[in-house]
């Protein structure tokens, strides 16, 4: 048996990561499918295994508001939510990012009402896409654990100071039990130094956070925020490199699978990516030059890495797990289009939407998506967004 190899549910792995990070404050409101994360943290605090304040708030809006306060006094702050809960936080998300408070939040991605759905898709995070947080996607329980630990170090870096959202697919990751390599406390302590917020609220050294901005300062404030978020990519890269040295597990903003010589790329995000790999393997065995590309880092958008990764492909097939109602493509696909538009030579793009509200996508369906996408490209049908496996 390998040292530190355990079986653990995704939610508990996330809670374990927050515990190993020595989180000071957890303010959260339980919501399916995030519930196990915060239940576990509440238990750890109650049992004295985690020396933290657990604030049982009355709503997600209050959860994020409490996180603002605790992060601003310099406490390492963690929360988790899902679906409607993320949307109820919405206005406060912007305050957290513009105030540059490095809160770490796990979102157990869930569809938005209605019809009311507790099951997974990416509607929640896509609706919060422009809230100014660093946004990262995990594909399995191990990554969920690793990326939460990295999230604290990234967000708290004095040159970054941004809140970080780690997305794990609701149920598919939050409720799955998988093998997990844990890190020990000493390793995490070495990797993650204590949080020291340079502008912490302190009666002995007063500061004002969240001041009013007239038209003659607001634009500069936004430029400063945007430039800092873009620049955070360097720290993200460095942090993941160092984490790779510690754990042997390496993360990149844009990750690829069998893309050498690939003419057709499927683009996915989150836990369905591993299922998609099975389809890639099957098609490769049949001689198709196909590969998989995954956006691990969603914000800041890894523009250079993405452009480089797809430069040689002829076709990109994008699978969105959310709709942008009334738009020509899904939210990820429109970003892909925008990222590639300035290039002189670029792959063509086909857009699919699927996996909504907890509907599975099997490896066989991924094969169909790829074949269908290639067919559409051949016949020049690039202008339509297609929803997969929809009854008609």
């Amino acid at each position: 048996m390998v040292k530190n190899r355990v079986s653990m549910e995704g939610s508990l792995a996330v809670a374990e990561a927050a515990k190993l990070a020595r989180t000071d404050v957890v303010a959260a409101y339980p919501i399916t499918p995030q519930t196990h994360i915060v239940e576990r943290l509440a238990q750890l605090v109650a049992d004295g295994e985690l020396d933290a304040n657990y604030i049982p708030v009355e709503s997600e809006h209050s959860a994020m508001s409490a996180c603002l306060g605790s992060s601003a006094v310099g406490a390492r702050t963690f929360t988790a939510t899902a679906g409607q809960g993320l949307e109820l936080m919405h206005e406060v998300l912007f305050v957290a990012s513009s105030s540059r408070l490095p809160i770490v939040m796990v979102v157990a991605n869930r569809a938005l009402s209605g019809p009311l759905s507790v099951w997974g898709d990416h509607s929640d995070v896509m609706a919060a896409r422009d809230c100014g947080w660093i946004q990262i996607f995990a594909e399995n329980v191990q990554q969920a654990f690793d990326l939460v630990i990295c999230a604290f170090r990234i967000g708290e870096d004095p040159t970054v100071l941004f809140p970080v959202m780690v997305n794990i697919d609701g149920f598919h990751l939050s409720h799955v039990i998988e093998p997990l390599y844990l890190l020990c406390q000493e390793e995490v302590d070495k990797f993650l130094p204590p949080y020291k917020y340079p502008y912490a609220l302190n009666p002995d050294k007063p500061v004002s956070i969240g001041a009013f901005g007239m038209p003659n300062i607001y634009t500069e404030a936004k430029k400063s925020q945007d430039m800092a978020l873009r620049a955070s990519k360097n720290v993200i890269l460095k942090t993941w490199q160092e984490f790779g040295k510690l754990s042997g597990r390496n993360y990149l903003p844009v990750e690829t699978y069998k893309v050498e010589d690939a003419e057709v790329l499927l683009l996915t995000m989150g836990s369905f990516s591993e299922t998609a790999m099975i389809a890639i393997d099957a098609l490769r065995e049949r001689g198709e030059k196909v590969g998989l590309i995954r956006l691990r880092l969603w914000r800041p958008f890894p523009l250079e890495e993405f452009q480089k990764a797809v430069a040689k492909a002829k076709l990109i097939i994008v699978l969105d797990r959310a709709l942008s109602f009334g738009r020509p493509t899904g939210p990820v696909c429109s970003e892909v289009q925008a990222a590639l538009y300035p290039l002189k030579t670029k792959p063509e793009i086909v857009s699919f939407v699927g996996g909504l509200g907890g509907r599975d996508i099997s490896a066989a369906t991924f094969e169909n998506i790829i074949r269908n996408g290639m067919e559409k490209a051949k016949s020049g049908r690039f202008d339509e967004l297609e929803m997969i496996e929809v009854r008609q």
Partner: protein
Amino acid sequence: MKDTTIEIRWHGRGGQGAVTSAELIAMAAIAEGEYAQAFPSFGPERRGAPVLAFNRIDNANPIRARSSVINPDIVAVLDPGLLYITDVVSGLKQNGTLIVNSPKSLVDIKSEFGGPWKLAVVNATAIARELLGVNIVNTTMLGAVVKATGIIKMESLVEPIEERFGARAKRNIDACAKAYKEAEIAEPVAVRARQKREFQVEKWPAWQELLPGCVVIEAGSASQYRTGDWKSQHPESDYSKCIKCGLCYIYCPEGCIVPKLGEEGFFEADMYYCKGCGICAQECPKDVITMVEES
């Protein structure tokens, strides 16, 4: 397309009704069949703080511009104190018109603020105090603006004023008419260059200079804020009547009344911060303090 738009910039203080002046002008012009717009400089409303309002009037074409007026044809100044803290003639066109509320004579104002523009002076504060009982000069100033520019007809203002002021309309119309009668006008001084004046220029940081989250690390930085620029009156004290009770010091909402330097037990207001609210004068049991108009 020939530019047929006449632009007006109103300088006033929060509470003096510059926005109402602009609105009434626009309503009158629209009633005359012209194209017109009125809008304020949007911002937090603070009584006494310098504010701007704008008009555009066009007898030929619909108005499309929605940005602030930078190069006005007409500038109207509702508060004499603003002349010394704001560059009211900034961007004023050659042969434009400057209309000023001041107790000073046309000759005196001309020597200070004359230039290649028509100049009109009226003591609107005195008229408003006499006919309306308050220092709100918006309707009064309209009379001077109409006389100096002819931008609209006086009778076109009657209906908008009645609509806006109801029972108080008659007095406001009278004040407007009195200002029309009393305003004194001087033609542009063609050869005279604009006088150089130094105004406090606000300096704003570049984006690179901002701290993360725009955090303010300097405690008490609000003390740099010159709220003294908001006043249209200031307190003057006759210390021979003062009993050193300190009630002015206690009641001052700005906390700007401080012990008078070198004179044990007396108090005085710090003009850097005094907003001219008059509470000290109201509360003084011995009538030591009188509020005097800024001029």
